[in-house]
């Protein structure tokens, strides 16, 4: 590596002229009315981290129940509720929002933009997400949590078997779905249309690309499950017959609608983590990402094929040999682009001058751990083998390796890596390493034995098991591992809280990295960039520092531009949408005309607030 030619800190531009329609706000008002993608991102991330702890606590409780055979720490109904809430929380309220946090904070920075395409819509997505999270968790207070599993299979969710918790579940998910669809449109437009001059599509960083791919997955996969949820809601509220077997309904309809969403969804969870890892490895191996274009195209390919594999979750549902064979084949195919990425990461590390700060440790660990999960996935891609593994702990081991070992390790890596950009301060590396090792050890102690448990026949979602099944050891290990992970998480939380206030001051570019976000101050100013950068390669900041003739040049005159103003409208109109859901929940507890009265008021409110929204100056 050659010496630095230019320093990022030295790059100064004249003060820009910013134009707002309405004056700024401070304190709490600032957060409630913000349309700044960075603040929205921070709230998303914080909410996600909070729910990660909530979901973890739920897991800790049911792992205590499973620690020993014939345990009576909790009953079956409580267990089912906790498992359902654990999975729903982790998928929709922890990993997705943390990912959304990264997407919001980083995407405009990665592409050299001043904000997203529709800043107020972005705030609307945030509030609607928080509303959905609130609704789902409110079930604990009113009539108990949903208990039909996060996959919500009919008829467990139907009027006959599903308790009141199911109404919180389906209506809360419907809100989350609206939030995600709005966000996906916003980010697709942002990434496609608002790149800095010179940033052609292939110069968009891998993380930006993965974020783009998942927005398409969200935009196209949420509608089917939304339809599924609406049909469920109609069955429960109005007595329609969609999932009612006695009227000819077919529970498989739900399974198709759910998994048509569910499988693209797992890529929504993993691709951003892959993007983060693809950003981090090159920085600490001091080499460009090996085969960047291949990484991008394999991500796109995964996105496409991801829509054609959903029924591998239904091999035991009796679809027949032709469908089983077809879906087994597409599922095997999707492992190919996944393998391509793994080799690209290894190729990046090969011969690199490596350093190992915390983000790098998480990023490196991601590779083998995620690969293990991919391999077990490939095993149950074979339909005949899956008949044995389905609904056993083997599947539980699979998806925890890809979700915890994959998505979550990636998000942790990203947190340590981007923390200095977000807060201006470094996280403690010592505490970070303690978090890393404890978490890695804990997760393997918990989830590796579950492969064996599954092969020995332990079904998932049972609240206790007999002593003579001889599943004691592996279950005890599972509980011990969760306790270790809990300790690791406490260290993480402590690290975040302390570092926000006391961490070492980070400059613009603490890791000596390569992409545009490191050009901005830490934390970035409202306008992100004082001047619009011109991008001439996929590594603009790296080239500025190390490549002759490729430096980024600041203009002599301050730029002038328009910035979006604070607004209450996103929160207000999101509130009226929430009101509709409250009407639905009132209907659960007090059937009658409530629903129509509240729904009519909510509709008027939505129309009114949208009118106020479109008429206000921005």
């Amino acid at each position: 590596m050659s010496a630095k030619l230019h320093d990022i800190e030295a790059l100064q531009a004249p003060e820009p002229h910013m134009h707002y329609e309405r004056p700024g706000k401070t304190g709490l008002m600032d957060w409630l009315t913000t349309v700044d993608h960075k603040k929205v991102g921070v709230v998303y991330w914080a909410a996600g981290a909070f729910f990660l702890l909530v979901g973890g606590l739920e897991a800790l409780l049911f792992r205590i129940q499973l620690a020993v055979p014939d345990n009576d720490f909790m009953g079956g109904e409580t267990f089912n509720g906790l498992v359902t809430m654990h999975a729903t929380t982790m998928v929709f309220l922890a990993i997705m929002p943390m990912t959304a946090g990264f997407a919001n904070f980083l995407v405009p920075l990665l592409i050299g933009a001043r904000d997203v395409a529709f800043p107020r819509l972005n705030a609307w997505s945030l509030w609607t997400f928080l509303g959905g999270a609130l609704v789902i968790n409110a079930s604990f207070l009113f009539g108990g949590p949903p208990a039909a599993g996060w996959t919500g299979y009919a008829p467990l969710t139907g009027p006959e078997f599903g308790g009141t918790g199911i109404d919180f579940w389906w209506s809360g998910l419907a809100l989350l779905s609206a939030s995600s669809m709005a966000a996906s449109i916003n980010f697709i437009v942002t990434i496609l249309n608002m790149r800095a001059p010179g940033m052609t599509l292939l110069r968009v960083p891998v993380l930006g690309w993965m974020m783009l791919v998942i927005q398409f997955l969200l935009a196209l996969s949420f509608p089917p499950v939304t339809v599924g949820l609406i049909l469920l809601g109609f069955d429960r509220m109005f007595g329609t017959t969609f999932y009612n077997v006695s009227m000819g309904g077919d529970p498989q309809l739900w399974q198709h609608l759910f998994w048509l969403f569910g499988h693209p969804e797992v890529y929504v969870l993993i691709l951003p983590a892959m993007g983060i890892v693809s950003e981090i490895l090159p920085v600490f191996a001091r080499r460009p990402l090996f085969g960047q274009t291949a990484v991008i195209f394999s991500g796109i390919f995964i996105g496409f094929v991801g829509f054609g594999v959903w029924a591998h979750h239904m091999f035991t549902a009796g679809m027949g040999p032709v469908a089983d064979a077809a879906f087994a084949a597409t599922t095997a195919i999707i492992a190919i682009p996944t393998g391509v990425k793994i080799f690209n990461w290894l190729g990046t590390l090969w011969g690199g001058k490596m350093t190992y700060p915390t983000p790098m440790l998480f990023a490196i660990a991601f590779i083998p751990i995620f690969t293990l999960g991919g391999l077990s996935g490939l095993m149950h891609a074979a339909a005949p083998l899956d008949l044995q593994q389905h609904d056993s702990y083997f599947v539980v081991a699979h998806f925890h390796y890809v979700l915890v070992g994959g998505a979550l390790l990636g998000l942790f890596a990203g947190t340590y890596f981007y923390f200095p950009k977000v807060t201006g301060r470094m996280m403690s590396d010592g505490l970070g390493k303690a978090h890393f090792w404890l978490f890695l050890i804990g997760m393997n102690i918990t989830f590796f034995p579950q492969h064996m448990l599954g092969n020995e026949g332990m079904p998932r979602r049972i609240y206790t098991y007999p002593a003579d099944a001889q599943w004691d050891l592996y279950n005890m290990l599972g509980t011990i591992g969760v306790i270790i992970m809990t300790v690791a998480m406490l260290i993480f939380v402590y690290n975040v809280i302390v570092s926000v206030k006391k961490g070492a001051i980070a400059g613009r570019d603490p890791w000596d990295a390569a992409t545009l976000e490191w050009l901005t101050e830490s934390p970035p100013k409202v306008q992100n960039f004082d001047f619009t950068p011109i991008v001439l390669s996929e590594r603009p900041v790296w080239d500025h520092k190390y490549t002759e003739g490729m430096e980024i040049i600041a203009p002599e005159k301050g730029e002038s531009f328009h910035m979006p103003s604070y607004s209450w409208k996103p929160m207000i109109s999101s509130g009226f949408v929430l009101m509709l859901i409250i009407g639905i929940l009132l209907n659960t507890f007090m059937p009658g005309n409530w629903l129509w009265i509240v729904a009519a008021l909510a509709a008027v409110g939505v129309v009114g607030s949208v009118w106020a929204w479109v008429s206000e100056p921005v």
Partner: protein
Amino acid sequence: MSAHAAEAADLIDHGHAGDDGHGHDELVENNYMKVPNVKLAIWTFLGSECMFFGSLIATYFFYLDKSIGGLLPKEVFSIGITSISTFILLTSSFTMAMAVDTAKSGLMSKSRNWLLITALCGATFVGFQVYEFWHFVHLGLTLQTSLFGSTFYVMTGFHGAHVSVGVIWLLMVAKLVHSGKIPAERAVFVESAGLYWHFVDIVWIVIFTFVYLLEFAK
């Protein structure tokens, strides 16, 4: 000049840097896709809507002829009446096109009138649908009667809801055109409402053809 320097000079020349957008929600719109932000957003939204209606229509066909008891499609459908409402909706696509066309040529008050006519057609269509539902319920087909009742009402009901949203949308756009908040330079806002309107229209053509007409071709 190196290739890179030439590229940089070129980008600066074309005034890409520092473009301040056009107010409203659009910030720096470098317009890479040669489509304004709003329009690109609507196209993406319609992609999402395709999956939404695709799922509803697929559900209808998944359950076609699987009802246990209850009235059958042929026993309730009245092609005559639905043809009239379909014709009105199709006409509204024409008036919508006129609204967009006049807006683009800067004839804003004409555009406003076309928008109002379009909204009126849409409202009439919804009125027909309300009548149709009322009529079917009196014949004895309700949401709860059978799979046909459930799938038919939910699918066409959500389409009707989309038309209603469209009517409100058109009225808002008409008001903004009237008050001068959508001048000719921002005709893209009229055009975007138009895209949605045509989409909702096309969905109806699909439903009318495959759900209504095909029933009588069997």
